[in-house]
């Protein structure tokens, strides 16, 4: 019984991990992300370094000028803009590959439960994402640390890495769900729409709304938008989860008065991931009927 349940999971995990790690398109996407992340880290490190050299009062400085922690917090803010490329490419490539191999109809003729096949696939793909993302996130943090010449808060580094993995998981699942419903060709365009909504539209809406109701100061020291109530856009979820670990003097979101609110973001992330995973497992059996 245990083998019947666990071995399909392991089978898909290993197949999708191996298949993704050796993919050329993935390699190109990872190279792009690595270049963009390290370049941003270098720019932010430079800004922090120059601010330190100027001897200005830290309280008057922008977030990214406030030492290594400030630079890393700012980098975390930019990750939702550049990171989604990898999970979206991976989801599309994986679904295309499965379709061309005629894998699903054959897999569905096996006694393994669909949810274990879906779980193994998602776990394998997440592992494939973690392979480049963890070292890259650490490399960016330590590049900033090396440039600025001061240690980065380890909890902040852990939140940065964890937040990036959660964000990647969200976009991966979204890509898998879109691709399963409409075909692999739709993964890119539909994910791009979510990316636009989660970044440009969300930010624009927030700034306009905030200016109208005077919810945040838009002058002086820059305070990034609040993420606590933003459990719909993936950027909000990423910022919310990272912000919980940012030292108070570097807070880049408005800290909520209600101490339960940060937990809402964590639960919202979990709900999104579980919800999309369940949806994907259900949809898998529908693919050949399309």
């Amino acid at each position, binding site marked *: 019984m245990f*083998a019947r349940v666990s*071995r399909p999971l392991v089978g898909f995990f290993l197949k999708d991990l191996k298949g993704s790690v050796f993919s050329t398109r993935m390699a190109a996407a990872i190279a792009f992300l690595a270049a963009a992340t390290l370049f941003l880290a270098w720019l932010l490190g430079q800004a922090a370094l120059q601010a330190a050299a100027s001897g200005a009062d830290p309280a008057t400085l922008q977030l990214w000028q406030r030492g290594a922690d400030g630079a890393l917090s700012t980098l975390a803010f930019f990750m939702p803009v550049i990171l989604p490329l990898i999970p979206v490419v991976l989801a599309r490539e994986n679904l295309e590959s499965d379709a061309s191999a005629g894998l*699903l109809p054959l897999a569905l003729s*096996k006694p*393994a439960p669909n949810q274990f096949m879906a779980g193994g696939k998602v776990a394998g793909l997440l592992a494939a994402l973690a392979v480049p993302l963890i070292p890259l996130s650490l490399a960016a943090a330590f590049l900033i640390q090396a440039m600025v010449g001061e240690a980065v808060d380890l909890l902040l580094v852990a939140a940065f890495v964890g937040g990036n993995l959660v964000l990647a998981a969200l976009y991966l699942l979204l890509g898998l769900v879109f691709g399963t419903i409409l075909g692999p060709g739709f993964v890119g365009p539909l994910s791009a729409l979510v990316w636009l909504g989660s970044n440009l539209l969300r930010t624009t809406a927030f700034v306009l709304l905030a200016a109208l109701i005077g919810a945040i100061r838009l002058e002086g020291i820059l305070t990034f938008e609040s993420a606590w109530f933003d459990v719909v856009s993936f950027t909000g979820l990423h910022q919310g989860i990272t912000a919980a670990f940012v030292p108070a003097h570097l807070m880049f979101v408005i800290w909520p008065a209600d101490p339960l609110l940060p937990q809402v973001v964590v639960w919202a992330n979990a709900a999104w991931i579980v919800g999309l995973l369940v949806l994907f497992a259900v949809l898998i059996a529908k693919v050949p009927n399309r």
Partner: protein
Amino acid sequence: MIEVEGLSKTFGWRKPVTAVDDISFRVERGAMHGLLGLVNAGKTTTMRMLATALKPTAGTVSIDGFDTVGQTREVRKKIGYMPETTDFARWSSGPDYLRFWARITGLSGSGEKARIAELTEFLGIAEDSEESPATYTAGHQKMLVLAQALLADPEVLLLDEPLTGISGEDRAFLLGKLEELKRRGKTMVMASPQLSEVQDLSDQVTILVEGRATDPFPTADLLRQVGEGKHARIFVKAVNLSAGALTALKGLKGVVEVKPTSTVTVIYVDPGRVNVGLVRDTLDAEGEGTAPVEAAEITLGDVFRAIVKEGA
């Protein structure tokens, strides 16, 4: 035992396309049933519904009394499915491919290795083991997919065009293995576009044309249906046959249809009743004796037409 009753499948909702329309047949334990049809006849859709990978729009399939929709898990334990096409690019070796499917099938880790070795030996692909299956010959790729279907030693084998694309020794070898599996008591359904394949292996045949099917009939009747050594279509290479000649041809007993096209006149005949000589004699009598007359090979369409007409 397999029982298929009124099986239909329609794809799409805005412009629905019926891929399979009201198919029924029954396969006794240990027998092989042939599904004969050309491209887009509905063979793969039917096989996928039998394999529980597709849900029928209407009708039922039961395997050993288990319904493929309501008792999917039980059915899946009994079947081995060999799909028509597989892309091997992602697999590093034949055993790598089989290991993956052994895991999905739920074979235990200890049983997996021995079973893979046994099957690769049985199907003559053990020596290819370290090669990427993408580099295997077409025949060995088919053996590998058959090995996948046999991993759990299923009672029922669903084979979608197992012999398509292979020839020579590989074909003869695989045919021999399928015969051996039949002798071992496997119940099989085999889809094929080739008359000869079905003729050699199957006990019963259902012919599919554009999703519609004939009633199943014994394979031994296949030759009787089409008329051994006769031809079902006869071409008269003349564009403007006289009205008298056309009428005379239509009047022949056994002529189903006379169809002038822009290049030839096609005569559809009941095999066994009309042959080239009779057509030539008729044209001679009508003063069209110079028109060249040729017979075409028997096609599935001819067989289908002959069978449908007989049943009408």
